[in-house]
């Protein structure tokens, strides 16, 4: 006999009734717990459904956000992707072409000129490079005949042999420039060689390169070598500008 049963007998109640009441009570409790459990299960399923829906919404919003960020980044000029990749190489090619072919060719052609004062020689060199760049990198493709015509007066005083030699330099130069022009056109993006500068503006190394013999202190006069520009982006290669001849150039030059 348990303690509870002993207590119940002492109070004059029937043990069977107590047991029945207990069983009833426990049965009720069981039903209630089962109902609670079912309710919780339903709620849990509902919440899981909600959660799944929220996750899907989040995923969709994430995808939307990614699309927006992608568009945003495509519009940022300071970033470059595959489209700009070709221009890096082509701009380096342009710079190399000018430094290793265009300018040295001009120096060779200018060297046919007779002895002269240094100031005149340096100016002549700069002007020749400038004119040649205009012909080679202007709006229209470079033509051999125009380049030959440009070289002719420089070489004329050195005799017909020199004239012929100078003329022979035109064709390979035009061919290289036109090949570069074609390669740039193949990128399919808008592009230009930019000769524009406001004469009289202050020279800034952030915007321009300075011609070798020019003074940093003087205002800009004109562009010698154009900038390589893709609209909407900073120049790939900055323009080389001329200001005034640096003060130190002034001694006569004797040529053989």
């Amino acid at each position: 006999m348990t303690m509870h049963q002993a207590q119940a007998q002492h109070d004059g109640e029937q043990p069977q009734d107590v047991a029945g009441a207990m069983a009833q009570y426990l049965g009720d409790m069981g039903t209630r717990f089962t109902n609670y459990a079912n309710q919780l299960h339903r709620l849990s399923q509902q919440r899981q459904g909600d959660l799944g829906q929220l996750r899907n919404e989040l995923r969709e919003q994430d995808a939307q956000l990614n699309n927006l960020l992608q568009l945003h980044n495509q519009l940022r000029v300071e970033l470059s992707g595959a489209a700009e990749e070709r221009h890096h190489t082509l701009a380096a090619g342009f710079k190399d072409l000018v430094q290793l072919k265009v300018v040295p060719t001009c120096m060779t052609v200018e060297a046919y000129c007779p002895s002269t004062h240094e100031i005149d020689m340096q100016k002549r060199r700069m002007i020749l490079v400038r004119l040649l760049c205009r012909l080679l990198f202007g709006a229209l493709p470079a033509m051999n005949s125009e380049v030959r015509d440009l070289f002719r007066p420089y070489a004329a005083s050195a005799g017909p042999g020199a004239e012929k030699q100078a003329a022979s330099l035109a064709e390979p130069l035009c061919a290289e420039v036109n090949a570069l022009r074609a390669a740039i056109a193949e990128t399919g993006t808008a592009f230009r060689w930019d000769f524009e500068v406001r004469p009289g503006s202050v020279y800034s190394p952030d915007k321009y390169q300075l011609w070798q013999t020019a003074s940093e202190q003087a205002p800009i006069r004109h562009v010698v070598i154009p900038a390589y520009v893709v609209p909407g982006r900073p120049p790939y290669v900055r323009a080389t500008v001329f200001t005034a001849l640096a003060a130190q150039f002034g001694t006569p030059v004797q040529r053989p």
Partner: protein
Amino acid sequence: MTIRVVAAVDFGTHGSGFAWCPVDSVNDEADRKIYYFDQWQDQPVVYPKNLTALLLDGQDKVIDWGYSARRALSNAGMRSGAGDLRLVQGFKMWLRAGDTPANGHLNGTPQQALPLIAAYLRRLREVAVQHITDGGYREDEIRWCLTVPAMWTEYQRNAMRKAAERAGFPATPDRLLLITEPEAAAIHAFARTPAGAAELPIMVVDCGGGTVDIAAYRPEPGGRLAQLGHTDGGDLGSSYINQRFLTGVVKPRFGAELLAHIEQHAPDALQEMLDAFEGAKRQHDVGRDTPLSITIPGKIYQLLHSRGGLQRLARLQGGQDFHVLVDSADADKLFDGVVRPLTHLVAERIVDMRNLLGDRKAGIRIVLVGGFAQSPYLRSQLTAFLQKRYGSAVELLIPPDPARAVLAGAVHYTYQPSVVSSRTVELTYGISCSLPFEPDVDPARLRFVDDRGIFRCRDRFLVFVRNGESVDIDQTVSNELVPIRNDQSDMSYDLLATTEKDPRYCTGPDVRVLGTVKVDLGSAMRLPIDDRKVEISMCFGGTEIQVTSRNVHTGHTLRTALSFNPDTGS
């Protein structure tokens, strides 16, 4: 934290840059949209790499970096008191001071290099974070990757990681990955190869400014790459050609005194001339009949003029004074100092690869990357050599922009590190311990009796993985140790590395101690001695090696940060 962006930093000897890519469903494909940053302040040409240079004051405080450092020095040169400023370049290679580079070009130590690398990386990271966060992402959503030369030792890689952490990059290995430069280039080349054309094994020849790294990979099913054999390389970077140009061409033309004056007073202009020489290097080819013309920057030109140097230059160059002229024969000599040994290295590596593949006539695709890969002379010489010796079995590929291959490949790797399936271990790794004594093999002086009454040999090298073995990514090798003494309350061991394939003792001449680990036996002490087990695991295959020590009874685990010893260059 969700990773929404991956970003790679290529820290080069001459130039450094970063690229990044958002992690999204569009970029889950290999043809990812990678963004490069190409707007460096004061750069001469728009390009994804800034100059690896720092401007320091007299107290070694960083004043400026990149191309701006050069410009700042140039501007300061016009003012008084600029004498204390110095432009530092090439400091990445100072980490190699423990080695013995053939070209002996180091003017700094690893200890001096670390703060400089950290300072440079800090500025690079700041720009990268600014541009990525401008794109709508948060800094803590970025997984980073840093490229390192394949030739670098564990110590040098660890030093780079330390410098990166000091620069503000994440300290956890899963947020800052390291990848070797040729591996990144191989991934880039592999990602660009059309499906079906990627069966050939790849040899990557990464010709950077300071070093040339060569590594081989075999494509595997599922678009993955397995490393094939060791990494090779040498101090054959194109900067050595620049050095030869200065000493062999510029010095005799300008005169030693004038060149010294320029080095002292116009280092920025001298660097500009070397940039122009870089362009000339891209033009020089076999059989070129016209001389290379290297533009003399205005500052040097005007200096030469005022000191009578132009007449000397004109006299030595047939009247030409506007450029430095290098005739073809001289240019060939400048290049051959690097190109010939490089060709030999490639030939040796082809033999190694074919041996590993078990096919003496196996087809191989060589991918030439790095800044110097743009040299037509290098391409021509290498092509001619390969065609003559191997015919069509070995083909040479050069990506459209070889200088960016490493950066792009590092982004691909950071996006999907599992693209690399296995790597070759470059050293034999293991630990020091006592093993059963073998009478006919081990010397008697190493013999002792443990507390079980067993003869043991001290100073043994317990090998975990052998030099040259291929290990899968995240492959773990484990060994269990038990104490030798009953009253031993802890177990300590040395982490060892050696080039030997079968080292027996940890006292061998080539064996280096990478670090020491101590594991407390704790409550395991109440167990019988043979049950007091410590499990030591080494996880290989990553760019670095993770070591874990676990007390089997208590479950206490110790992840070991290897403390590399810089003195040994290990």
